[in-house]
């Protein structure tokens, strides 16, 4: 293999600036998308397991559609198609006046895709951990809605913190898709550096380590929360 190593490029002002700003954007997009995913996912997931038939159907439709269209296609739909099919004035606003249009679009698209996956985890958690306690809760005289709100839901949500870790990690990885619509996040910047310097090894290594560190942080954080609220114990005890 014929390759001239030059790790110093990682410390040259220009390239170092690119890579760190890429890392920053990756973190921002990941966190914002995760916030969207959690909100939508919790809403749809609880709706999916709720006693209301209409809510169940609607949430089911959302989950089925958003999970089964590739996230990159969804991103293109939001970015290229949405402004064309909405009323002209709104389309114009999307194209002209929306601040950071690529970033906002990426956050919405990734958040809604990840949200459909989170919703499935929420539903599964409630079904596996919370739902089996329904009869016992009803037997104490609670009404179904009370039993659901006081027992089934809180227990189910606690149990899913562990499984949500991998969804969070998936969201971080999905943030790289935003490079296709021009967001200069970590992967894009490492490619950028490679194109300029031909030092692909060094640039991609930086990105790789960046993702691994983010991954470790996410795993550590989620484990901390899981232990604090006793989620693991809930998943282990057979109901």
């Amino acid at each position, binding site marked *: 293999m014929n390759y001239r190593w030059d790790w110093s490029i990682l410390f040259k002002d220009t390239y170092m600036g690119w890579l760190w700003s890429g890392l920053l954007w990756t973190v921002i997009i990941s966190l914002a998308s995760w916030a969207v995913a959690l909100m939508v996912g919790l809403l749809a997931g609880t709706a999916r397991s709720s006693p209301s038939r209409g809510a169940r159907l609607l949430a089911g439709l959302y989950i089925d559609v958003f999970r089964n269209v*590739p996230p990159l*296609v969804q991103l293109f739909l939001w970015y290229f198609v949405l402004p*064309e099919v909405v009323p002209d004035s709104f389309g114009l606003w999307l194209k002209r006046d929306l601040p950071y249009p690529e970033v906002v679009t990426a956050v919405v698209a990734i958040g809604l895709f990840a949200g459909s996956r989170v919703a499935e985890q929420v539903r599964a958690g409630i079904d596996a951990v919370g739902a089996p306690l329904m009869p016992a809760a009803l037997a104490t005289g609670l009404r179904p809605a009370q039993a659901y709100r006081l027992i089934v839901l809180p227990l189910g949500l606690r149990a899913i913190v562990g499984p949500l870790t991998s969804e969070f990690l998936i969201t971080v990885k999905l943030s790289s*898709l935003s490079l296709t619509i021009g967001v200069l996040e970590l*992967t894009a910047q490492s490619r950028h550096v*490679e194109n300029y310097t031909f030092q*692909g090894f060094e640039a991609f290594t930086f*990105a*790789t380590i960046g*993702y691994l560190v983010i991954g470790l942080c996410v795993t550590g954080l989620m484990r901390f929360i899981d232990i604090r609220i006793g989620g693991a114990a809930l998943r282990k005890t057979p109901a």
Partner: protein
Amino acid sequence: MSDFDWGIIARSSAFLAEGMALSALLVLVATVGGLILGFGLALMRLSSHRWLSVPASTYVTVMRTLPLVLVLFWFYFLVPLAIGRPVGSLTSALLAFVLFEAAFYCEIVRAGISNVRHGQSDAGLATGLRRAQVLRLIILPQALRAMMPLILNQIVIVFQDTSLVYVVSLHDFLTAASVVASRDGRATEMYALVAVVYLVICLGTTKAAEFYRKGLPS
């Protein structure tokens, strides 16, 4: 809505079909190669020798933490360097897919194998079967049944993943559609078509996996 020209789909159908063929090739190679490699990795991870299990689990963890886009870039850059001459992006994409998806198939195979009751392997060993025979005759047939829905789900994910070869300019189904979209200014029609096609195929497979899972004895 009168501005839309749905005829564009018919007119570009041959080009789109070629894209779909490439997507299918990627799915096929990634799944077959990924399953074979993933099976080996799973056996390594389950081994009691740390010099086998630690490298395998490190590999899996790293691959599962990296975005596929970055892995595609890595291979796009590395493969020609390793071979010493330029190769098409298809070769490096195929390699990237096999090595990337292997990490995910490894976890499916590992879960499948470790979910078979431990006593089953004791029972086989007690009759004098060797470890490899126990694995092949007793554990794997049971594990495979439990793994089938998960493998189907992973195939859906791989199929969705193939759309990412867009970043190395390979003409898969999505990229083919995007070429037409920007050439003829027909983004709405083309991306709507792409979304519907993916939805139908992926949802169908997902539902089949669910159906299969429900039919399994628990």
